[in-house]
């Protein structure tokens, strides 16, 4: 039986990790909702943002969080451009499959370019507060992890408010619910889809910066993120943002707690087991709506 201290520590770590997962999965499921696109390059952009944060820190010596001012708008524009110039041009009949390949190609391209520019060496930001931590009822919370969590939480909250309480959010949700009906209601769905894509990519920028604070990055790291993220969005129900957030917290916590008896590696399999179980038992996901049924 693990000690109470270790248990508490794991719960704290799971919570912190789940927050980051939630933000990133929200972006991934957003693309799917809008366009039925499985955006394999999401995590590659995540790593790209992390690299930008690292590089910014190395070059300027300033806090990597400041790089957000550049990456968020940049990624937003990139997302809009990607949707309008590439994905929207694929044949609708084969969109799902071909978009997977196209975004996969983009992921390869980013990975290759990062490797070319920065080599395959693992990189880590060195901050004055890297090893600092706070005490919470005996559990230690690393300051960097707390900042990352706060960033993810704030971004997620912002996304939620935007979707629920803005006119754009209304249009976006209508587009996700029923594209044709949304068009009939006078929504320019192509435009909305483009902005939605940009929004998704902006979450990757924030997530990547948060990630860079306390983790090591290397070009091929994105493969280790895309798997859990895809599992999360399927478990949460493809296209459902609240579903993705809940699934992310549940699975992130499960991973952290399972590390105690199983070790890090086996604990990671929880994502994939949840994925297979979901598809075999409840293909529409556990929190999702009708969208997932036919995909």
């Amino acid at each position, binding site marked *: 039986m693990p000690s109470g201290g270790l248990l508490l520590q794991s719960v704290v770590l799971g919570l912190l990790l789940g927050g980051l997962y939630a933000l990133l999965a929200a972006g991934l499921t957003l693309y799917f909702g809008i366009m039925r696109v499985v955006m394999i390059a999401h995590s590659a952009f995540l790593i790209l943002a992390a690299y930008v944060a690292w590089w910014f820190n190395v070059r300027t010596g300033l806090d990597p969080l400041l790089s957000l001012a550049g990456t968020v708008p940049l990624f937003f524009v990139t997302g809009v451009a990607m949707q309008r110039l590439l994905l929207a041009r694929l044949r609708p009949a084969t969109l799902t499959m071909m978009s997977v390949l196209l975004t996969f190609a983009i992921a390869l391209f980013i990975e290759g370019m990062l490797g070319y520019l920065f080599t395959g060496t693992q990189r880590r930001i060195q901050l004055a507060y890297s090893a600092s*931590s706070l005490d919470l009822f005996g559990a230690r919370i690393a300051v960097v992890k707390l900042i990352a969590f706060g960033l993810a939480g704030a971004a997620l909250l912002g996304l939620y408010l935007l979707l629920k309480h803005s006119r754009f959010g209304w249009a976006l949700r209508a587009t996700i619910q029923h594209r044709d009906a949304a068009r009939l209601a006078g929504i320019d769905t192509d435009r909305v889809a483009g902005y939605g894509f940009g929004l998704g990519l902006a979450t990757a920028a924030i997530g990547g910066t948060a990630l860079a604070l306390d983790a090591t990055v290397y070009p091929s790291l994105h493969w280790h993120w895309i798997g859990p993220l895809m599992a999360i969005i399927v478990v949460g129900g493809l296209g459902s943002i609240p579903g993705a957030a809940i699934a992310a917290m549940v699975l992130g916590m499960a991973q952290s707690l399972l590390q105690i008896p199983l070790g890090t590696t086996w604990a990671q399999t929880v994502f994939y087991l949840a994925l297979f179980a979901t598809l075999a038992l409840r293909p529409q996901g556990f929190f999702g709506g009708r969208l997932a049924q036919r995909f």
Partner: protein
Amino acid sequence: MHATARVKLGIAASAVAVALAVTGCTGDGGSEKPASDPIVIGISLPLTGDFAEPGKGVQRGYEAWAKIVNDQGGLLGRKIELKILDDQSNADRVVADYEQLIGRDKVDLVFGPFSTRLVVPAGRVAEEYGMLFVEPAGAAAQVFEQGFKNLFYAAPAVAGDHYNHLAKHILALPADRRPKTAAYAAMDDPFAQGTAYGLKAKLEAGGITTVVNEVYPPNTTDFGGIAAKIAASKADIVVGGSQYQDGVNLIVALQQLNYQPKLAAFSTAPTNPEFAKAIGNKTEGILAPTGYTNKAKYPSNLEFVEKYKAQFGTEPEEDEANAYTTGQVVAAAVKAVGCAEQGECQKKLVDWLRTNKVETVVGPLSWDAQGRPQGAHMIQQWAGGDIQIVLPEDVKEAGFIYPKPAW
């Protein structure tokens, strides 16, 4: 419909053209060479990919060796020519590379690549072509369990023996000072894990209880969970079977949890020049094994360090030294046997190395029947912002600090 047939015809035609081009450009591979030709040495190294950094170090070591030998007139009166290919840290590639070097380019000798994972497949190619295979980097146990007859490891000790001096020292402590519990975290990599488990076996035999034993895959970046377990166990000593970045991450994660062991030993990472900066200079008391110090007084090492500095502007590290050692070992055999080409000669080189001792920059080396060197590594410790040799007693530069101060 006939368009399809035409296309197929076109495809077949281009396939023929490609095949002819591929076969045609390599018509003459096997002609005999006159004795004054250079000795061509084929090497495949990971210049890109996971092992790119150490791979480049090995490359510098080989180049330094070739330059030094050539400046002194070459080997057997023949110049040394290195033919280095990049295997992208990929086992498929490394095999194709040695295949190409031996089968197509007909190199005279081969040197080994970097990392245990690449040494085994590469060693098999050399073995099946009957080539002598001296390698600078395959220290893990299984390298020597493949039944290779032509393989020699050009370094003082295999992975499991790296910590021998440390184990002896710990177990010799008086019972009241001796640590009671130990935590181990090792990368799932034959070399890194080999070092940690070598120490683990010896400490367990000496009565020190293992309270945490974690293995993580090479691509792990989040060490929070592992660190939490180690910190919760309050183990007296922590041993990390690490490469570079994972060691840094694990130490930072442990420090985030404010875990203060009496002894902390990590392989590879602490000897890296960037290490102190990477963990924010909180290095106090960290231990690491090393097979090489550029301050060693062996005659060939003095020459190596001086000429290396002249060539590259920095002091050589362990990877460079191991590569240089590989060159020295092969050169000794070539000089003694008097030949360097494919065929019968290779067998003679192997036989000579099997029964002789070679003086190198890491000291005198000799091998058992499987190619294992018969030595142990020195132990270094960080103290006051500097890393110095503390074990064994006869070569130490500073005293061993135990228990270690807080980091």
